[in-house]
């Protein structure tokens, strides 16, 4: 996997990053570089720092120390105005979906596309297409609470993919999907990666890791325990 790794400038770069919560060290002196166009799995046991790493990358949190660079922006020192610009370059698939409860499935996606300056009709077309690809077009008028966990996860995925971001961060994206849907999602992420986007997937799903060869980071106690191709 890892299309064109090393051929593009880094999209993600972490330098000596520490993160602690109430004195508990979650990430410890983490150094990481992900080049543009790479497909990277981040795995490790619960509490290893996978979600924290992703939260630092989409600037939901600041590191306790160190530098975090994403798409050329130093995230740990970013201003609010630049932050929204950065987040429009990054598609995030959240572990807890983060769908807008008062909006329908379709609106959850068109709403974000509108932030990106996409015209209403085009936003509607793109949202419908991505929902169709994820097999959810028949639920486009449903509210998130009327969907199953797997369906909600697919809506969250559709939202992240709809605006074709340069970087996709996925936190346990297959957690609520059956094997077929997980395979479909992985194939979707591979297609997007092949089109040039950088993809970073945090998962503890071993079957996912085994399904395609890709650069894999194993985090352990806040540090990188393994960084290389997996399966070898």
């Amino acid at each position, binding site marked *: 996997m890892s299309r064109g790794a090393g051929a593009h400038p880094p999209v993600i770069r972490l330098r000596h990053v520490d993160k602690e919560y109430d004195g508990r060290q979650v990430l410890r002196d983490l150094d990481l570089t992900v080049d543009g166009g790479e497909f990277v799995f981040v795995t490790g046991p619960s509490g290893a720092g996978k979600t924290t790493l992703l939260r630092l990358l989409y600037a939901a949190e*600041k590191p*306790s120390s160190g530098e975090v660079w994403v798409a050329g922006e130093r995230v740990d020192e970013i201003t*609010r*105005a630049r*932050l*929204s610009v950065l*987040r429009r370059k*990054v598609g995030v698939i959240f572990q807890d979906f983060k769908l*807008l409860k008062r909006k329908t499935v379709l609106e959850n996606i068109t709403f974000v596309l509108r*932030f990106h300056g996409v015209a209403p009709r085009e936003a509607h077309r793109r949202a419908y297409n991505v929902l169709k690809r994820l097999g959810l077009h028949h639920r486009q008028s449903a509210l998130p609470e009327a969907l199953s966990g797997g369906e909600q996860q697919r809506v969250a995925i559709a939202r992240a993919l709809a605006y074709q971001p340069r970087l996709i961060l996925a936190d346990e994206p297959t957690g609520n999907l059956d094997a077929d849907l997980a395979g479909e999602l992985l194939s979707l992420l591979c297609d997007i990666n092949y089109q040039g986007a950088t993809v970073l997937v945090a998962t503890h799903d071993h079957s996912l890791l085994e399904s395609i060869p890709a650069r894999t980071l194993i985090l352990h106690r806040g540090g990188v325990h393994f960084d290389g191709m997996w399966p070898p």
Partner: protein
Amino acid sequence: MIRHALAEGWLLLRQRLVISFGLALALAIPVCLAGVTFAVMQWLTPVVGLADQANTVAVLLHPHMDAEQRNDWLRSQSESHPDWRLETVSPEELADRLVHWFPYLTDLLDGDGATMLPPLVEITAADPESVSVLAKSPAVIAVGPRVSIRRVLGLAARSLGLLLAATSVVLLLSAALLAGVWVHLELYRHADEIAIMRLVGATEATLQAPFLVATAAPGLLAGALSVLGTLTITNGLSEIAGALALPEITVGPLVLAAQFLVGLLLPLTAAMITLARHAMVELES
């Protein structure tokens, strides 16, 4: 952006229609009171002006002073008190003015006409109390009352105006605070959605615009209600004034336009301050 703001603002309003109407009323009342206060203050301006007018005090001179002595005394007083304006009452008006200023001295007028009436000088001074020093002068028999009822009326009118204006300002500030609190509560109620929108790249302007739309609507209603309220109240007061043969209370179109703008801009300003403060919240460290 505008379509998004209008659509989302309308959604916010629809969810809180009764509260929005309550907010509009809460804004309209102080704005209306401020408009009525302004109209009443304009109406009272001539009365308030009385407080600032120089006050006149009557001074009775000794009747045995001849004209030359009287003129000397008047000249010396003018030189000592350049801020005073001294006027000797003419013999034709003397009797009437004496009754006006010293009604308790009417026995002076009860004679057969042979009684010499004391000369009367009216002194106009910014501080009528300063004229009281003349009471010690051997040339003076009596110094008239120093506090004019007109001055009391003027001061009362001014105090009433200030009280109404202060009440209006306090109510307006309370209304602005209320609007700010309303926006704050709405932000709190939508905190999850706002957090999600921020995570997916919404700008602060995109996030704030619907709240401004949702605040502008009660602001518009408040402006309109306050104009209607002011017109109704001033008409009612005018009728009462007319029944008492007093001038009408009028309120000009500029005042009404200003009221409408205050009704609209007050909640919008409060909302903008609240939203700006909310946007200042830094990332978790």
